């Protein structure tokens, strides 16, 4: 089986402590994972997760405290929604969402930590090294960095639990559909933007990105309205568009 590289983000108070305990107890697990300590799982930004994939991680693991145990009360609840968002974007970019895993591990669950890491490593080994189109993952990173998905990822919990301002509570099913649509749209928009570094027509974009032309057109019109895309020229009665310089809010650095 192929060697795979895994990155783990563990919260300081529970999962990282659980990982230490696995060591103290000499529970053995495969050496593929590289651990990064964060104070809380709530810190783990989808952009960072997707960036790890972009740079070559075959799997990303996020470990936090059990629900109700987060040192900062609710960080892990927010983490859960953010990880879900990142999984959706992975799927759009053509990567198995299974490659991103979130688990709650307490400071006393050393054995469980070792088991989970072993399982996860085996699972990723079975999938093999990750493959994706670079531009697809870049689009996913851009979508994760943009305000729309960041708002929904943060507010999802509230909408599910407390409802919108009219007191209408979303069902899990409605929320899933809404999120799927939103994520897909944002992802498509970012793909278009990335392609439009060179001028292109709607038809060309549609065929290259394998999208329906009417969808591409709708995105282009939105992008124009937000002044992210300009009409470049009209050649043979066909308008061609070009993206403006990407400003901040893109992939960092």
């Amino acid at each position, binding site marked *: 089986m192929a060697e795979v590289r895994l990155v783990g983000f563990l919260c300081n108070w529970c999962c990282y402590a659980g990982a230490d305990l696995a060591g103290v107890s000499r529970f053995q697990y495969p*050496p593929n994972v590289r651990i990064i300590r964060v104070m809380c799982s709530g810190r783990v930004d989808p952009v960072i997760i997707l960036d790890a994939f972009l740079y070559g991680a075959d799997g990303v693991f996020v470990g936090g405290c059990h629900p109700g145990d987060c040192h900062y009360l609710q960080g892990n609840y927010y983490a859960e929604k953010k990880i879900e968002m990142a999984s959706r974007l992975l799927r759009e970019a053509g990567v198995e969402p299974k490659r991103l895993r979130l688990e709650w591990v307490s400071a006393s669950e050393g054995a469980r930590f070792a088991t989970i890491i072993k399982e996860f490593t085996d699972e990723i080994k079975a999938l093999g090294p990750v493959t994706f189109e670079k531009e697809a993952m870049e689009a996913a990173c851009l979508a994760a960095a943009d305000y729309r998905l960041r708002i929904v990822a943060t507010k999802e919990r509230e909408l599910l639990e407390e409802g919108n301002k009219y007191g209408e509570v979303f069902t899990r099913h409605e929320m899933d559909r809404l999120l799927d649509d939103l994520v897909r749209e944002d992802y498509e928009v970012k793909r278009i933007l990335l392609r439009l570094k060179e001028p292109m027509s709607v038809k060309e974009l549609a065929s290259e990105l394998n999208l329906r032309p009417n969808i591409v057109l709708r995105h282009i019109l939105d992008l124009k309205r937000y002044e992210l895309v300009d009409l470049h020229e009209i050649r043979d009665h066909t308008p061609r568009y070009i993206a403006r310089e990407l400003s901040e809010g893109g992939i960092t650095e």
Partner: protein
Amino acid sequence: MPEEIRIGVFICHCGINIGGVVDVPAVVEYASTLPNVVHAERNLYTCSSEGLESIKAAIKEHNLNRVIVASCTPRTHEPLFRATCKEAGLNPYLFEFVNIRDQCSWVHLHEPESATEKAKDLVRMGVAKAARLEPLEELTSDVIPTAVVIGAGISGMTAALSLARNGFSVHLIEKEKEIGGMLRNLYTLYPTDELAEEFLEPRIQAVKEHKRIALHLSSAVRAVEGYVGKFKVILDESGVERSIDAGVIIVATGAHEFEPEGLYEYDGERVITQLQLEEKLKKGDLNWAGIKNVVMVQCAGARGEVVGYCSKICCMNAIKNAKLIKEAHPAINVFIAHNELQAYGEEYELYYRDAKKAGVRFLRFPLERRPKVRRSDGNLIVDVFHERMQLDIPFEADLVVLSVPLVQNPDATQLSKMLKVPLGQDKFFFEAHVKLRPVDFATDGIFLCGTAHGPKDIGESIAQGYAAASRATIPLARGYVHSEPIISSVNEELCVGCGICESVCPYGAIEVVEVEEGKKRARVTGVKCKGCGTCGSSCIRRAIKMYHFTDEQLMAQERAAVVTEVIS
């Protein structure tokens, strides 16, 4: 010109703990090839005094401005190495820990080669982060030696007296016209059977007479600002606004009895609550001549009927009142219909046996078939389901007493919002940790005691009052608070004032404020922030920088984890 980055890497053998698995010299050699690394060495035990000395010496000799120790775990040893850096004149936040023992050599005992490769990777990740570390200064702020205690029931009074006797000024805030709380309505107390009034009076006197306690009666909290050490509590005191500065706040707002409106034929006359019974006993205005049978119903409205929880004190309370009636009027039949009986501990168990001895009768019903109260020809009948016989047994009653739960006061929600402290599922105030921090809130400087935290009897409320006071004494006595500089900060150029960050912060540490006319931006109050970073990963403009765990640092680590060729 940015300062040249000079990293020193110290790799620990930890005896054979690391050195027995990982090829430490190979890791040292690898480390010295990494960008910005100007010195790499290995130590048998980096945490020994020799190891620490060699760190200090290397800082001087090689003019290091970043130090990495690759050894055990930051959870135990980071403070030590940070302190060492500080002694050598290096800002302690320019230190980075790499865990190659607990998370490497110990968990890959049989794969020394892979473990060595992993250790190299981990060191490379540490170097990537270290190069991006920034010096940070610890935050210190003064503590005003004054406490605000909200609620002057028995636990609030206990806390206030304890703090005042320790030499601190206390502002005791009470919404009623008098202090004493729930105890003022009680007749006797279990398990001593003493009169509540006699118990309470000297304590009220002590509070009133204490020169360091300022009483604020008929007062309600309107707003709370600030943070540990520097709170500002705005009061409405009989219609007059007042502002109090304090270093700590204790929440002792109590609870009240659930009103069983619409349940068990409750009418406040012949079907009453335990508290109403106590009032009648106290005033002596029950016509005992007309009463032959008293039936008490436990868990009325509790444990799934209206509220979900067990109010825990009602069993003992019912036993006390039943015993009292039975002892004063042996001819009266007193029944307690119950599901479970919480008479925990030896003392309470003996008290329960005394009640039985006195002739109180106990009837057990299953929770799915609670007693029913009905009226027939002006008589009250309580049907109690007998589980073994599988039938309802009717008991005639001249007086039905409902043991209803304590419930949170309706104004608690508002107070919890003002203080930014949470309420739990049952709407009671929620402590930071059930075992480790039972009277603290997660927010520094705010403490909790008494029934505001959940049903409790007098003894427990008093114990918590003392506990909260002693916890509050720590910052008060020390006079200052320290906090780690691992906090968030907002780039006001990027921030649009949307308030998402404010909505996720559990400590009220980040708030949107009007920075100038019509321009809103988020601001962080450093001492309040605990550095979780949730605001940063939520910010819609990625305008928040989480010190010591910045996006840049984390991404450098994550990239270094997967890209073997060095990226500087």
